């Protein structure tokens, strides 16, 4: 009678936890440790060098270019897709019959692989030989591939990513908008609210939680940007589109400076950690309501 019955639930949660811990937590801690070393990935000869990696990063121009690009990325992502996504969601809200057809059409770029999307833009649109850019240039327009210029390349990369991403926000916003109580909307209509007032004073307060949650997720995601930059420009021309993600990657696999890559990776998580702290607080607040 003294022996307590074994709680099977511990066994049930073990597989998920084990996979996550052994693939994310433990290597994550190893990354933090290796950011203080000069490890090159292969050699068993590992020396602790203190904050040397971080110090070198702060003297590296490309590191600051990467941070600047991540900030540009964030600013673009919290404005452009949010506005387009919200506009489309509000318009779809009034289309009861055609709503799902539009939604499916919007989502197609979102469900395609980034590799395919990037190659598609790279070749058929941006290519200076066969793309639309080349065609319009042949017609006498003064344009060149935005990926080739150091100034515009980062905007072009972010643009393609936004093209692929905005419909996700539309779907989320639309689902949130549809939960607005209809009697509130009716009452406002009878009081003579116009479309903007309806959005500002009725819908917006109701979907505020979702909008701010998405805001946090977009900020986190912007500091993790990798796929489209890597695929479209590889960080070039002349490192002008390097973001923290590609920068860390090239340290680890091109110049074999794993310690330094780890330091950049740590920096990326730092931004994510702040945002995920906010995320956790927001969702807890929401759960309490």
């Amino acid at each position, binding site marked *: 009678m003294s022996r307590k019955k074994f709680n*099977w*639930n511990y066994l*049930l*949660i073990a*597989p*998920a936890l084990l*996979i996550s811990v052994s*693939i*994310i*937590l433990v*290597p*994550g801690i*190893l*990354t933090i440790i*290796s950011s203080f070393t000069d490890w090159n*990935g292969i050699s068993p000869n590992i020396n602790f060098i203190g904050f040397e990696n971080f110090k070198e990063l702060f003297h590296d121009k490309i590191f600051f270019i990467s941070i600047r690009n991540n900030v540009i990325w964030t600013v673009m992502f919290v404005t452009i897709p949010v506005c387009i996504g919200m506009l*489309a969601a509000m*318009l*779809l809200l*009034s*289309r009861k019959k*055609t709503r799902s057809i539009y*939604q*499916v*059409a*919007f*989502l*197609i*770029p979102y*469900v*395609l692989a*980034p*590799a*395919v999307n990037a*190659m*598609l833009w790279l*070749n*058929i*649109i941006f290519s200076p030989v*066969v793309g639309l850019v*080349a*065609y319009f240039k042949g017609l006498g327009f003064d344009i060149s591939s935005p990926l080739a210029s150091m100034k515009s390349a980062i905007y072009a990369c972010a643009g393609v990513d936004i093209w692929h991403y905005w*419909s996700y926000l539309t*779907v*989320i916003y639309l689902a*949130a908008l549809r939960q607005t109580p209809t009697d509130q909307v009716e009452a406002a209509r009878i009081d003579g609210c116009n479309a903007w007032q309806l959005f500002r004073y009725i819908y917006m307060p109701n979907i505020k939680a979702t909008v701010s949650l998405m805001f946090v997720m977009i900020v986190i995601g912007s500091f*993790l940007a*990798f796929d489209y930059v890597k695929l479209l420009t590889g960080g070039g021309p002349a490192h002008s589109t390097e973001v923290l993600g590609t920068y860390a*990657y090239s340290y*680890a*696999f091109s110049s074999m400076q794993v310690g330094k890559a780890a330091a950049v*990776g*740590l920096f*990326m*998580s730092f931004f*994510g*950690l702040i945002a*995920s702290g906010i*995320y956790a607080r927001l969702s807890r607040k929401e*759960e309490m309501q």
Partner: protein
Amino acid sequence: MAVTSKKKRVASNFIIHAVLLILVFICLFPIALVVINSFKENADIVRNPLALSQVIHLENYIQAWETGKFAKGFINSVKLSGCTILIILVCSTLAGYVLSGKRIKGSGGILMYFMMAMTVPIQLFLFPLYYVYARFNLIGNIPATSMILAAVYMPLSVFLMRTFFLNVPRDLEEAARIDGANTAQVIWHVMRPVVSPGLITVGVLVGLQSWNEYLISSTFLQGEKNFTATLGFLAMNGSYGSNMSILMASAVILIAPIVIFFLCAQKYFVDGMVSGAVKG
């Protein structure tokens, strides 16, 4: 009076549809261009990428299928996504069940941990993992790579499954318990029928994401025989960059199955996206 308001409504309907159609055009135009050009000869594409082809060159597709080694690539993609879905469904269902009530001590801490794990950049754990995998000769091993993908998608899947379990009425489980059912029987006979739409949702979401994944699969699946369809396509882009018609045809080969799959499973896909972000 009634006539003007009707006119006004027609006008506003027209504007709404016009805006929505412009957005549809923006979304689908590049994809349509790829489809159009996949039937043309290389020289015709260079001359005018916007024009329709006079002759339909279906042989582009045959050539694309062979040079992209898509027969092998699709099998590898199916293997990778299949393994990931399997691992995720088993683990996230069990974990979602446990975390849906106060069944163990520290469940709040575990939820917090998964919340953090969801927002961690892949670059934070990728590098040591790569060298450990290399040490054990697991680079190019598809099931081993799917394990990493499973770990990445685990937190979201656990949260989704947890919400589905939370929707199971508490009385149902208690009634079964009173009748003498053990945990395994409760999960299989009471929970499974109620949460099986959740399983499909998570499966569709994870399947699509692992099919499309780039960073992890390009790092860990090296060697041409291990390439997924997407990686094969990327490799082709490097070496066959000059032959546009083949490249466009292979892009269509990659796009078509995903679009068809999405059209069939869109309800589950949208449900999964929404229930991860919108409460209610």
